[in-house]
């Protein structure tokens, strides 16, 4: 028997992922051994520290990876500048998301004290009174982040599959943990899980077909086999390869939220707790686009003209359908979280526009766009988590009990009217994020759109870029609609909000008609929680809710400020980030 040669492992190059996943594992042990009252602080320090550590590790690796690609584990994982850049984007955005997750403006965090308890049950009420907290969200989010970092950096399809599951499974659980509107939250997790499991089964079957075709799950070998240089006995069966590529792409496009596979996005984004929605919307999308670019561009090297044409047709169709659905269906939404979900679908379409180019101009454009989109979207969801409903009772201002009267987020668009007068700074930040998403000059979104459409034109796909431009123009309409609503429309409950004791009686009937009516759906959703203020559920037929904004410098407000600064910086002086992105455009060793 010949001697065993252990695979070469470059631990330094693995360090960003190891730090994040290691922090997650330590987090699980913290849950097991640290007493309940100290858990939250410990977890927060641990997860933020872990992500910062990963960021430092990425910074240290940056220069060495530019000069030569590092083979990390044998040949199954190699660190390219592109993979490292996606990891950097994921870690930065995950760090900001973690701050939003930790936010407790209004006295409570966004997560159910015991997510396993039946909504409205006595056990849940006892857990709430005892002040239990679900600190498991921090390790779960860390595991998910680790999966995302692995997802974009591997060339081995089976590691791709494992990473897909490592990033998805915690997200399924996190979607089900909202403190308020728990039935909607559980339903979101249920839908996300069933559809996610179905598409991951499709993906793994696609991987099996590619393995059958090439005799390997290693992307370079598959690309060689596609180009006719392989020695696999089944290499003549090109149909295996095409079917495999399509099935793998279905799984990746599902995670991205592209058109035929987007149907989960609005429901899950609406139902999941808002901090988790922000995390899902930006980090998952960045990681999934990283993996999509890597798989498609790698295999693209082996495509003959016919196959390349087929893949192009597929990408064009998906990109156009995604932009169309994201913008047109987005126009008629009345819920802010649903609207942002459709906006994120549209953005997935814009990134897909760059993907048809199959070159390094496209990869750097994708990187910049993901960062610009991520900052604006994360900031927007952080603002959404700060706009709340409050029960307008006469003693609302009377002191100690006030905190417990702050309810869930006011997500109906009608409730956002007149927000500009209640919280000018927060509204200004939100307007900035919307303008960036719309692609108005001097914001990050403009530079990002310019880059992706430029990449498409560079590759000769100008009709696609034109359609993208039209879609952005339509999307501008619904972003401006919200801006007008927030800044120029007076709030229906303004009197009650300003003078709680005297104004409530006068403005009562009007405000109730204006605000309580759109809440009908949420009331249906909470048939069990009829006890009014004391329960965390929301059915309160007789009470009037007014919209209130959490001010003060909680972590979420800090995130809003940081994202706003980032959006402006990327919009005004984009050159240094564009240079970084161009340096990181190399996607294959």
């Amino acid at each position, binding site marked *: *028997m010949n001697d*065993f040669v*252990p695979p070469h492992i470059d631990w330094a190059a693995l360090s960003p992922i190891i730090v994040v996943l290691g922090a997650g*594992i330590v987090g*699980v*042990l913290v*849950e*097991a*051994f640290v007493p309940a009252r100290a858990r939250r602080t410990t977890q927060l320090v641990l997860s933020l520290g872990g992500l910062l550590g990963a960021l430092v590790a990425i910074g240290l690796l940056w220069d060495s990876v530019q000069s030569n690609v590092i083979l990390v584990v044998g040949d199954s994982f190699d660190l390219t500048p592109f993979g490292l850049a996606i990891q950097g984007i994921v870690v930065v955005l995950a760090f900001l998301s973690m701050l939003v997750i930790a936010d407790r403006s209004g006295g409570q965090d966004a997560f159910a004290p015991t997510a396993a308890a039946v909504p409205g*049950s006595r056990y849940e009420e006892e857990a709430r009174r005892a002040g239990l907290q679900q600190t498991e969200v921090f390790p779960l989010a860390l595991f998910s982040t680790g999966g995302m970092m692995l997802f974009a950096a591997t060339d081995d399809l089976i590691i791709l599959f494992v990473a897909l599951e490592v990033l998805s499974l915690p997200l399924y659980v996190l979607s089900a943990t909202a403190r308020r509107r728990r039935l909607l939250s559980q339903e979101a997790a249920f839908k996300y899980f069933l559809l996610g499991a179905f598409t991951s089964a499709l993906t793994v079957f696609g991987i099996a077909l590619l393995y059958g075709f090439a005799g390997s799950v290693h992307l370079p070998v598959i690309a060689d086999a596609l180009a006719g240089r392989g020695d696999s006995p089944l290499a*003549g*069966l*090109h*149909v295996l390869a095409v*079917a495999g590529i399509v099935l793998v792409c279905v799984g990746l496009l599902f995670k991205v939220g592209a058109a035929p596979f987007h149907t989960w996005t609005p429901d899950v984004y609406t139902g999941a707790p808002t901090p988790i929605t922000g995390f899902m919307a930006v980090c998952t999308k960045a990681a999934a686009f990283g993996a999509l670019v890597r798989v498609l561009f790698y295999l693209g090297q082996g495509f003959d003209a016919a196959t390349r044409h087929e893949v192009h047709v597929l990408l064009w169709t998906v990109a156009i359908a995604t932009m169309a659905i994201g913008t047109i269906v987005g126009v008629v939404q009345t819920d802010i979280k649903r609207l942002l979900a459709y906006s994120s679908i549209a953005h997935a379409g814009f990134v897909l526009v760059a993907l048809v180019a199959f070159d390094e101009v496209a990869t750097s454009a994708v990187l910049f766009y993901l960062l610009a989109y991520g900052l604006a979207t994360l900031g927007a969801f952080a603002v959404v988590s700060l706009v709340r409903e409050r029960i307008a009772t006469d003693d609302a201002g009377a002191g100690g009990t006030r905190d417990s009267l702050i309810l869930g987020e006011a997500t109906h668009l009608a409730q956002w009217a007149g927000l500009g007068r209640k919280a000018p700074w927060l509204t200004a930040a939100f307007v900035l994020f919307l303008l960036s998403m719309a692609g108005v000059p001097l914001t990050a979104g403009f530079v990002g759109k310019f880059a992706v459409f430029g990449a498409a034109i560079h590759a000769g796909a100008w009709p696609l870029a034109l359609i993208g431009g039209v879609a952005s123009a339509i999307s501008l309409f619904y972003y401006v609609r919200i801006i007008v609503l927030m800044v120029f429309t007076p709030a229906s409950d303004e009197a009650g909000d300003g003078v709680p004791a005297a104004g409530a009686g006068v403005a009562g009937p009007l405000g109730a008609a204006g605000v309580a009516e759109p809440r009908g759906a949420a009331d249906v959703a909470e048939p069990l929680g009829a006890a009014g203020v004391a329960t965390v559920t929301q059915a309160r037929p007789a009470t009037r809710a007014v919209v209130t904004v959490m001010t003060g410098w909680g972590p979420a407000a800090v995130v809003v400020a940081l994202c706003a600064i980032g959006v402006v910086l990327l919009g005004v002086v984009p050159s240094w980030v564009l240079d970084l992105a161009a340096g990181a455009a190399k996607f294959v060793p």
Partner: protein
Amino acid sequence: MTNPYVPVLVLMAVAAVLALGGVGASAVIGPKRYNRAKLEAYECGIMPTPHAVGGGRLPIKYYLVAMTFIVFDIEVVFLYPWAVNFAYLAAYGLIAALTFLALITVPFVYEWRRGGFDWV
């Protein structure tokens, strides 16, 4: 000799006929005399989900035990290849397997500390 896609089409047709045909045929020619037991999902001869008096309490331990069993039972599959090639893999394999076992122990410890094993 023929288009390489033809066998795939044939295969898809056969699969579709089998899958849809089975569902369709039983819908058309099968006798339809439903009773409660037939409408339930089959779960090893027990009631699929016990309907307790008062409609409230499920023996949640049943699911907890099942989930714990599935996770810790299946993970061990990674030890089989190592066990088969134990001598060949030598120290490297031993360290890798021990690391794997240590990682498996972490969720185990979590479940133990948080009362997942308090059955009695």
